[in-house]
């Protein structure tokens, strides 16, 4: 297994040593980027050692936003953890809801009615749209584009958040899904509005590609930067657009076919280089696929109940046992691992956060690159500190 030697973190130390060979200690510059740094996407710190502007060592430091989410989950009832999941990755509360609901449904063996499944798909794909659009906005913003791409992304995101608000009552902390279905049905006229928003989305993507798709500066800044090999990506548990940009065909929507994803016709875009540019483009292409799913789902959605009648809201006590439920969240594999001891609170409530695990390879991608690339690479990983630190 020769390739596997390169996937260990010892390889990083080896590379650091090589880069710093012949350089005295005093010539290296240690910079602590963060926790209050404009482009660390929250309170995140990178202890960087620089040789000139070249990164020779980088250690991510997290935990500034740690609130022991898992402990809170253990001390609360199953239902009461649902609003807390909104606060994990606060950009995509609906997919968090779904992952948690899926884990509890697996644990307790609850079915979800057809209409609720469609509602979940629609809201989750809308979440993916708004997450990806803001992420590429943030990424280009980090590369110094004065906010213009970000503002365009936010303009579109706002339309989707308005949809969320009129459906769930809140723009970001949606708290929408329940074990065995969804909380409330679509209000009148919602579907038409959503169709209009989705129909306008490709235009935004075209605009985005005009603005930056062939921009020489963007290409120079992103192509060949932070390349992540296939083997390392798999071994390090990297998921989501990062993994697919490295050319690995692994989309949980296709693999697990959770919910009703096997009913939709969509494709999984794959990159070949695994660099920042590929991650950027994969997100754009994924948005186009999400639009396809949304078109189909909003066309096919059947009438019917939105909650499983057997599902209990008060006094929900699943049988003792355990379950791991995972979905393809916009940032990667979001999993919830629950252990029930038969009481009203989970004995163990574990979140498998995609951005936290994806951060593992940050050093691998950054060593040898310039400090400005670090920012671009971090932006392309797409972390949300609410989820990293929990």
């Amino acid at each position, binding site marked *: 297994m020769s390739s596997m030697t390169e996937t260990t973190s010892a390889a990083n130390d080896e590379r650091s040593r090589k880069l710093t060979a012949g350089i005295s200690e005093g010539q290296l510059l240690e910079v602590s980027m963060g926790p209050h740094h404009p482009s660390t996407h929250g309170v995140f710190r990178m202890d960087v050692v620089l040789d000139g502007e070249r990164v020779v060592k980088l250690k991510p430091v997290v935990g500034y936003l740690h609130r022991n989410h898992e402990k809170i989950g253990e001390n609360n009832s199953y239902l009461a*953890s649902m609003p807390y999941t909104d606060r994990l990755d606060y950009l995509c509360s609906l997919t968090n809801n779904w992952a948690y609901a899926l884990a509890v449904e697996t644990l307790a063996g609850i079915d979800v009615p057809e209409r609720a499944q469609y509602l979940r798909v629609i809201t989750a794909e809308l979440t993916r749209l708004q997450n990806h659009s803001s992420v590429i906005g943030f990424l280009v913003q980090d590369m110094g584009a004065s906010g213009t791409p970000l503002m365009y992304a936010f303009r579109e995101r706002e339309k989707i958040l308005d949809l969320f608000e009129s459906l769930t*009552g809140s723009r970001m902390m949606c*708290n929408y899904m329940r074990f065995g279905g969804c909380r409330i049905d679509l209000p009148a006229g919602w579907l038409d509005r959503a169709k209009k928003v989705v129909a306008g989305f490709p235009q935004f993507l075209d*605009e985005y590609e005009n603005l930056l798709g062939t*921009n020489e500066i963007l290409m120079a800044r992103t192509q060949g930067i932070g390349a992540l090999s296939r083997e390392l990506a798999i071994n390090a548990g990297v998921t989501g657009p990062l993994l697919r940009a490295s050319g690995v065909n692994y989309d949980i929507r296709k693999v697990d076919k959770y919910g009703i994803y096997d009913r939709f016709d969509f494709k999984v875009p794959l990159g070949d280089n695994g660099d920042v540019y590929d991650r950027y483009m994969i997100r754009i292409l994924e948005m186009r696929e999400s639009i396809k799913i949304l078109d189909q789902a909003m066309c096919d959605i059947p009438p019917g109940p939105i909650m499983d009648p057997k599902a209990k*809201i008060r006094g929900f006590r699943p049988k003792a046992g355990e379950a791991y439920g995972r979905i393809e969240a916009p940032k990667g594999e979001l999993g919830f691992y629950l252990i029930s001891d038969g009481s009203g609170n989970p004995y163990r409530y574990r979140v498998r956060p995609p951005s936290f695990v994806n951060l593992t390879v940050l050093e691998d991608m950054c060593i040898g690159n310039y400090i400005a690339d670090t920012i671009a690479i971090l932006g392309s990983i797409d972390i949300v500190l609410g989820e990293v630190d929990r």
Partner: protein
Amino acid sequence: MLGEGIVRGLAETARNFLGSFVSKERLTTVQFPEERLPQAEAARDFPFLVYDGEDWQAGMRCVACQICEKECPPKCIFIEKSKDKKPDALGRAQFYPARFDIDVSVCMSCQICVEVCPFEAIKMDTAFELSTDDRFGGLLWDRQKLALSDAHYHAIHPTDAAHTDELLAAEKAKAEARTKAAVAKASPAPMPQPPAPAAANEP
């Protein structure tokens, strides 16, 4: 050719620059204090206690069952049960909250209290401009501040409120039927237990 992408980008920003003067689609800003978007019907901010009729103390639906206190995820509700009982909307004697405080600075607007309430007594308000200069006291709301009329509920969530009314009416009819049956049997009427409607299924 070098510079092509840059020129395309410049053309796009120019289009947006001009577009922001002519198209409302592009310039989506709402200038908040002067312009206000209508609030969505599903909007939720902080809970309030519904009361029927005019007097908030007499008409309060809450029976201090403390389910919401237990289920509240951030534990921001404090309830003290009353010593005595007062008649509720159906005329049955019920406890009432002697104290019902919500720490709004802790509340996370999750609506779980509304979902678990079997008496349709707590609902979500839509008022959001609640700033206060008192950091500790000003955000701890007592039952008087929390009590809002059923009419207010109808005004902010008409569909929801209509549905709630149906549920309550059905319950009332059931209760009346049971009382009648009990009277007909002329046996001592059992203490009517409020049946728990599936609150989660409300549309």
